[in-house]
């Protein structure tokens, strides 16, 4: 069982755990952001480079630091490894550079994009990016195309995370979807718009971290922060039937999978649940989904007021603790 220290917080993890997984076991602010890694899919990660971390000590046996930042989603931990994420200013600058690269070709069409408000790239840019771009050239343009009947692909928004490709590979017996061309020219394609008719194909909407793959049945219907998410289930012969429905009044505007705090789907849902069950009577509603109050979706959700109070109380406690501990230097593991 190797021991790894991330930002001064030590944890013992099973062999073969990656740094990112170890950081997620610790939780809190030291978890590196990830755009392409998806714990529910195999062989994801390594494309986007947002999860880079600094390894200041390789292992107990070989304490030399690694010469440059490593992607934490693809690097397994060694016994005695010391990792810097938030504690290394040079790394944060490197990550800001990665974000700038991701945003080079990403259009500034958030006011139009249906993903706005729940977009991982928005969060990433807000937390780690710079507010200006230094890129002077025109961004690449693609016409939006339909993938099958219910999914819209906006290739100009794609950041090439390969999640949807891996999903198509792993959920379907036949491979329909892939990446064509290279570098700036690369684009997701279904080989001459070959219809994706697998009954789980809709999940590629959920795995897409940006607004490249969006639900056509929800297209321009409403902004996500005007709809109320509720956890609901139904008896479904093809999938587990556990979903999240987004209500506006009595109307179900869209159905998505339930996502954990890293924005990853907990249970895949089938296309019938996702696209065809658009009535409240189709679903058994369990209760409102808890939305973190940092998210714009929590606007006017009064449930969060209680949490807010809880959090401010915690924060106040931490501040008083900090005053007591001032001068000890180490990053407080509870300070997240």
């Amino acid at each position: 069982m190797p021991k790894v220290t991330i930002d001064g917080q030590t944890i013992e993890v099973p062999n073969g755990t990656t740094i990112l997984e170890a950081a997620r076991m610790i939780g809190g602010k030291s978890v590196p952001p990830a755009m392409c890694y998806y714990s529910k899919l195999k062989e994801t990660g390594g494309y986007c480079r947002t999860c880079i971390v600094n390894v200041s000590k390789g292992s107990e046996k070989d304490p030399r630091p690694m010469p440059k930042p490593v992607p934490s989603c693809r690097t397994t931990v060694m016994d005695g490894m010391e990792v810097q994420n938030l504690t290394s200013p040079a790394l944060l600058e490197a990550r800001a550079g990665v974000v700038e690269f991701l945003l080079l070709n990403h259009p500034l069409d958030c006011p139009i994009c249906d993903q706005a408000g729940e977009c991982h790239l928005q969060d990433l840019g807000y937390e780690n990016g710079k507010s200006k771009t230094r890129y002077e050239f025109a961004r690449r343009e693609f016409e939006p195309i339909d993938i099958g009947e219910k999914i819209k692909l906006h290739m100009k928004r794609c950041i090439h995370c390969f999640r949807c490709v891996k999903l198509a590979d792993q959920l379907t017996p036949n491979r329909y979807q892939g990446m064509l061309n290279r570098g700036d020219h690369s684009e997701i394609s279904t080989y001459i718009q070959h219809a994706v008719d697998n009954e789980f194909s809709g999940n590629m909407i959920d795995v897409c971290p940006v607004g490249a793959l969006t639900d056509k049945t929800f297209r321009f219907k409403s902004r996500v922060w005007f709809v109320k998410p509720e956890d609901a289930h139904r008896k479904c012969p093809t999938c587990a039937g556990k979903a999240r429905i987004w209500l506006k009044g009595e109307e179900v505007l869209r159905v998505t999978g339930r996502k954990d705090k890293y924005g990853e789907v907990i249970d895949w849902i089938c296309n019938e649940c996702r696209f065809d069950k658009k009535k409240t009577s189709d679903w058994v509603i369990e209760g409102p989904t808890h939305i973190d109050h940092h998210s714009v979706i929590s606007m006017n959700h009064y449930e969060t007021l209680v949490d807010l109070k809880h959090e401010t109380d915690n924060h106040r406690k931490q501040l008083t603790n900090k005053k007591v501990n001032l001068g000890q230097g180490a990053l407080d593991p509870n300070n997240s």
Partner: protein
Amino acid sequence: MLTNRSQTVAKKEMTLVERLYLPAILHGMKITVSHFFKKKVTINYPEERREFAKVYRGQHVLKRDDKGAERCTACGLCAVACPAEAITMVASERKKGEENLYREEKYASVYEINMLRCIFCGLCEDACPKEAIFLTDRIVPSTFDRGSNIYGKDILVETMEKRIDISPRQTKEVLDFKTHKEYAHNKL
């Protein structure tokens, strides 16, 4: 006793001067008459109009761009910023051939501001990423019924014949920013 400032009232017998009433009435008349010789606080609106501050926040306008296309793209940021929840909208997708009507591929087919709810704080103007909504120096006319206070696009969107100039409301920083044509924000 919520405020701890309540006082018990004592009903004392009035003195002779108080019972005469005349001194109190004269005192009141003095105040009234003194106002005859002061400057009037009212004006004869609408014949006379007061000078407005440059940043006065009155009735909203939905701007068009120089080619006459509506700038609003129904992103909903004004509605989410609105503390009075006065703004509602319905978005629609632009069809082929409507490029001269709407600037982006999505537009607001319904855009309503409830003027009874609006508190004229100007947060919608701050939130707008497309420079579509602005508050102007126009006064919202009063009405006799509630229904006509919900302003739709027919009232809010400016016409190309009678465009509404909002440039005096902009700060120097904003006007300077607008001169940087290299920002995607300022193109078109």
